[in-house]
């Protein structure tokens, strides 16, 4: 990230001219949310924590903590990352300057697109046959390539398991 889009001159110029920039360590968010740096900073920190999904996340917000854009770094398209970063910034600015916040409908701008969300509880079968539950992912939006970003959330119980990705023809 720091050696990628954030070191690109046009991105640097855009960020310095049109945005106010901050970076926050994930582990510092609880303290900020607790209010050590004030009420408004606490509100923004809450939004940052709420939207955090990955090792590096990018958010654009108003000073009232309205989220305009949310982009996990890993979901930023792999090629021409700096150009995509500029696109993200430009779209965020258009929303901010156009006062179109109401049109966001609680869906911040992101260059990624959520294809599917699945909630499934896997049970131990009690036999040697594991619980294989296939979940189909429609990859037609990737006809011309791209990055598929898959998040798997697990609980805290003791278990073993694996996640495997197969071609449907396999």
């Amino acid at each position, binding site marked *: 990230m720091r050696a990628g889009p954030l070191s690109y001159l046009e991105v640097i110029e855009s960020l310095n001219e049109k945005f106010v920039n901050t970076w926050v360590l994930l582990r510092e968010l609880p303290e900020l949310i607790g209010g050590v740096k004030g009420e408004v900073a606490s509100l923004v920190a809450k939004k940052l924590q709420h939207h955090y999904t990955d090792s590096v996340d990018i958010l654009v917000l108003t000073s009232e903590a309205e989220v305009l854009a949310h982009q996990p770094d890993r979901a930023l398209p792999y090629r021409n990352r700096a150009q995509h970063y500029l696109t993200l910034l430009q779209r965020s*600015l258009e929303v901010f300057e156009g006062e179109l916040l109401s049109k966001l409908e609680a869906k911040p701008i992101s260059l990624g697109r959520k294809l599917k969300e699945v909630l499934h509880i896997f049970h131990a079968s009690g036999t040697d046959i594991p619980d294989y539950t296939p979940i189909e992912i429609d990859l037609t939006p990737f006809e011309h390539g791209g990055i598929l970003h898959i998040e798997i959330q697990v609980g805290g119980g003791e278990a073993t398991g694996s996640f495997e990705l197969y071609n449907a023809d396999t």
Partner: protein
Amino acid sequence: MRQNFNDVLQRSASVQVEVHWEPIADSTFSLHKESPEHIELFNLSPSYPIKEYGIDAFKAFLPPSSVAVGDVWELDSDGVVPFLLQFHPGATTALKQGEEGAFACLRALSSEYAEITLRIHADFIVGHLADWDWEWQGEKAAEDWIEEARFIPSQFAGKLVVNLKERTVRSFSLALPPRNSNVDINTFDCAHMVFVPRMEIRASDADDCGEIAWNSAITEEIARGALELKFYKFAEIEWRPLEEAVELAKAANRPIHAIIVWGALDDESC
């Protein structure tokens, strides 16, 4: 006002340098304590708790030509590494990844003294896979395992104060900044950020400790900012603490661009 350092540190004197190095104090996943092997890898202690250096050794931190306050110059790693070897024999300025380098900035100058601010990036190779019967969850080394286990400080921030009249070292320090995540530890198969409260080498001349009246100076923050720019282009972005960003965004009617990260952006701890 420019200062030429060619004639300083010419005396045949020596300087005693001490190491202060505390163990890893905090780690979310306790990787450094996961097994007896992990404990052995990262239970580190100084090679030489105290070491005498000839005063010539400190010329490694001086500029090659005359400089003014605020000027930055690159250091030759061959001159820097001997000091880091006092911590551990695996010291190297050849990083596995990240931004390599060692730079210095003249922060303050008077007719008698000069203060130089330092920033050095270095790793410590603490083990070689070939020397260990290492396994992970019952499996032996996989192809993607790395050959060396490393202890990677975020940076070494340093300060050298030279007595220009006496041609001596008044004080010297190289220290790991005590930020809450300041070291990345890499085993052969895994990596994690940890906190080391103190890791420092230092020396001072007990006979030379009065106040200094500088003729010209910049703040330490400005000097450190100038050094940071030598490592990271992204440091050209005007970053602010969250609370300042919120206030400024409101006053300037601008959106906030925020990055949330596991590890610090502006050093090598992640």
